[in-house]
Every structure is written in C-alpha cells, then in structure tokens.
C-alpha cells in the first residue's frame, strides 16, 4: 500500500496530460532533474539521460527548451523523464489526448513498443477506446469511480459485464433494445414480431420478463427478403470506405438501430433493409441492475 507514502517515495514516474515539462529547463535538465534531486553521480545521470534520449530519438533536442519542441517531441521528453528514473511503475495520464490524430496513432505504437522493451508495469488512463484496446494487457473500465469490469481487452469486448461497459467499448456503440423474453426464456421477441432464439438453452431464470438486448453494429448482416429478422428503415448512411454505417429504425415503436456493413454500400433514404443477427453474438442485460445475464 502506498497510501501513506509521499509521491517521491512511491518509486513511480508519471507522464502528465500536458506533459508538465519544466519550461525554464532544457530537455536535458528536465530529464536529469529527478536524478539530480536523488543525488545520483553526474556521470551516471549523463549516461542514463543519453541512453533514454537515444531510445526516444530526441538526442538532438537535448539543449532545447520545451517550448521549442513540437507536441510529439514534448511527449517523448515527458516519457524520457520517466524512463531515466527506472521506476517500478509508469503512470500515463491521457498522454496522447493533446496530439493530433496521426501523431496519436504513431505515439500509441511507440508507447506499446517501449513498454514491451522496458518491461515496466504501466498504468495508462485514457478516454480513447482504441488506445485502451490496443495498449492494454488488462483493462479496467471505470464507471463513476467504480471498476465496472477488469479483464483483457478481448474479454471485455466479447463479454461486457454491464450495460455501461458494453456501450463504452466498441465504435459505434452497441445497440440496446428492450425486449420481452418468452415464458420459458428460450427466445426473445424482437420489435416487428420476429423471434430471436437464444443459444445454450436460453435463460429460463428470466422467462417472461423484459430484458435489454445488446447487439453490436458489426454483428448484423444483410439477409434475404424472407429470412430478415429486423426490417430496417434507413435514415442515414455513412460511407467510411472499408465499411458502411447505416442508421435507421424498425418495428412499430421505431426502435433505433445502427448497423456496420462491410464494404461499400449505397442506400437511398427509406430503403427497407432485411437484417439478421446471430444469437451467439447478442448480449443480454438485466433491465434493473443492467448487469450481464449469463446464458
């Protein structure tokens, strides 16, 4: 427990959101500051800083002041300041949020590579789910100060523990439909009077109750006219190149649904699309507690 320790005694290093590089010190001094405070011999400091600068490819900037650096370079210096300390834990506080999109992707890869090389435990706080999915070995999804779920990124994607986690991971977000279950819990009644049979013997414990059905946009597929479960009335289409996002509604109470279809599609507004969803890909949550109901 580090609760009673001063920050200095916790053997941690932190990359701040705005980097917090000391503006009046050169890059070299910024990186050497923590070591100097700890009274490390000069030649050892020099060695560590040079080494970290080499890893991060910032050797040529060592004499510059932070304000003379670009965002990506500052980011590296902030990481260099942590590396030289050789701490037990790295803390990253949304370090990529101040960078532009292209640089963010690049730095994301570099952080991952660096972390694998240095093998130092790192805690990375982010709002960006792509960062969370790609950087994390283990993911903790925080909801209002509570850890809603802890697990590997794939685990969280495939088996979200609550409705919050399910809606948070994945882009565009998961569709949530309130649906009634049959009395024996073997199937769910979709809007538009179609039945979705549930796998693995259904959920008899919730038979006859209303539950929340979660369907990821990427798990809906186009179907033939006859076997469509949901007949989506298209409102709006976003063509992203590799795939297409279709926004629309279906059923009597106009349940909204977002669908991601692979490849280019062009749909006119008000086209009716027959869609199917595989029952192995649906998630079911309790209506009250919003917790996952295991099948």
């Amino acid at each position, binding site marked *: 427990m580090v609760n009673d320790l*001063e*920050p*200095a005694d*916790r053997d*941690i*290093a*932190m990359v*701040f*959101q*705005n980097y*917090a590089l*000391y*503006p*009046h010190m050169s890059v070299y001094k910024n990186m050497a*500051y*923590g070591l100097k*405070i*700890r009274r490390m011999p000069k030649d050892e400091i020099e060695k560590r800083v040079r080494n970290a600068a080499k890893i991060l490819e910032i050797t040529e900037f060592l004499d510059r*002041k932070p*304000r003379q650096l670009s965002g990506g370079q500052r980011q590296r210096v902030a990481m260099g*300041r942590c590396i030289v*300390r050789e701490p037990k834990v790295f803390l990253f506080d949304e370090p990529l949020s101040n960078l532009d999109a292209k640089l963010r992707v690049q730095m994301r890869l570099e952080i991952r590579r660096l972390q694998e090389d240095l093998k130092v435990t790192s805690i990375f706080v982010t709002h960006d789910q792509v960062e969370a999915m790609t950087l994390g070995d283990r993911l903790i999804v925080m909801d209002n100060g509570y850890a809603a779920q802890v697990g590997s990124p794939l685990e969280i994607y495939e088996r979200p523990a609550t409705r919050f986690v399910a809606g948070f991971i994945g882009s565009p977000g998961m569709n949530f439909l309130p649906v009634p279950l049959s009395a024996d819990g073997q199937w769910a009644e979709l809007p538009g009077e179609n039945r979705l049979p549930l796998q693995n013997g259904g959920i008899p414990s919730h038979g006859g109750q209303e539950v929340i059905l979660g369907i990821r946009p990427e798990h809906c597929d186009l179907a033939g006219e006859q076997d469509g479960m949901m007949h989506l009335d298209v409102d709006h289409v976003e063509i992203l190149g590799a795939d297409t996002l279709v926004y629309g509604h279906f059923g009597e109470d106009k349940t909204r649904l977002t669908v991601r279809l692979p490849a280019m599609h062009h749909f006119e507004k008000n086209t009716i699309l027959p869609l199917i969803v595989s029952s192995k890909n649906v998630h079911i949550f309790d209506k009250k507690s919003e917790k996952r109901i295991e099948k």
Partner: protein
Amino acid sequence: MEKRVVFKHKFLPYLLVAPQIAITIVFFIWPASQAVYQSVLQEDPFGLSATFVGLANFVDIFTDEIYLHSIYVTAVFSLSVAVIAMSVSLLLAAMADRVIKGATAYKTLIIWPYAVAPAVAGVLWYFLFNPTVGIIALYMKVLGYEWNHSLNGGQAMSLVVIAAAWREISYNFLFFLAGLQAIPKPFIEAAAIDGASPLKRFWTITFPLLSPTAFFLIVMNIVYAFFDTFGVIHVITDGGPSNATNIMVYKVYHDGFLGLDLGGSAAQSVVLMIIVISLTVIQFRYIERKVNY
C-alpha cells in the same frame, strides 16, 4: 476589409486626446523642461536674477561630498526596501497560496497597507518607534536596547526602510500571489513525483517561473524607493540625523525649497530624471526579451 475606425471629423480625434496631452504637458513636460532649464542657471535666493552657468551646477553637485553621500544613502535605502519588501511579500504570498479556508479575508488584510498614504504610514511607524511614547521603543528598552532614531543614523535608516517597505509589501504580495496562482499545478506535482522536497520545489520550479514577476517588481520597488518615499522620510527623519537618511529625492526638496539653491536642486532632479528614464528603459528592454523561459 478596412477594420479601423475612421473619424470623418478632422477636429474630433485631437479633441479626444487633448485632456491626456494637456495633463502630460502641465504636470510632466512643463516642469521637466523647467528643471532642465533651471539646472543650467544660477539664481539668487530671491529669484530676482539668473545667470547662465552651463554645466557648473552638475560639476558642483558631483564634487559635493554631501551629494555623493546622498547617492550612497539612496542606494542602501532602495536596495534594502526592495529586498525586504520582496522577500517578505514572497513569503506571505507563498503561504497565502496554500491557504484555502478564509483565504479572501487573509488576502484582503494583507492588501490593506497599500491603501495607506506614505506620509500616514510614516506617522504610524514614527509613533510606534518614538523614543518617548512609542510602544516598540518601550519594549526594546525593556529588553535592554536603547532606541533613538533621532540620534542614531543606523536606527533612523532601519526605521525608514521598515516604514517604506511595509507599504510596498502589499503591492508585491498582490503580484506574487497572482504569479503563483498562474503556475500550473502539474509542474509542482511533477517535481513532487521527481522527489523534490517542498523547499526544493519552490527554489527550482516555482521561483524560476516567477522570475518575470520578480524582475518587474524589482524595478517597481526601486522606483518606489527612489521617489514615492519622500513622505516617509519627511515625516520620520527629515533626512537626518546628519544626512543619514537624506535620499536623493529628499535632498532635491531640501536644497531647493529650504536651501533655495534652485540651480543645484534642478540639476539634482535632472539626475533623478535620467535615473528613472534608464530604469524604465531597462524594464521594457530586459523584461520583455531576456526574462523569458
């Protein structure tokens, strides 16, 4: 797109800047030029005749030991005022920056002395330290220290320095506090994680980031000590004992209005004018280019 405001009326713009110009002319340009003019004249005490003497007045004051002593006194006085006022206010501001409860009341109290006129501040301190009725002088006597600033030059200097610095502390406090509050907290947190103690953090991170404020205040404090402390000196010591607190601006008044040496006094004020102009130049040049991180 032409975005500037264009006055159609030819006369109006001049009318609008006229008050400012008039004030500058009446209260600055005119007296200043009079001072320069008089500094090259030798006038009799009754103001009946004047002769042009060139730079003789300047030669006179710079060979006058009392004047050279006055320059020395001024240097000691203004440096002491600046150092004391700045260090105390920095300490107060650093502490006020950490106060959360009652911070507004605390800050208001510290700012109050600035509302007191220099002469009134002088009177306050004069009474506190008065050898006959002053309460501080009394306590010092109890502790076995004889205080009499009308006899002891060193004590007189200490007293005017305290009285002058006291008021300036409020002014410096405001700027230091604003400066401290403008420093982003992550810098301090980063230094804490790097292992710096609070004192070390202050000297290696906070203070360097405050340096533009500090430099501005050094110049402001020296200008204040040079000119605005006339009232304090006048009320407390009259420049005495034996010129121990006779700073340059007081000597201008003393020689001109009491000694009626108008030419010499004018020459002294020209010297002061040159000093304040160079201080201003230093401030504008240096503060904007060099103190920059």
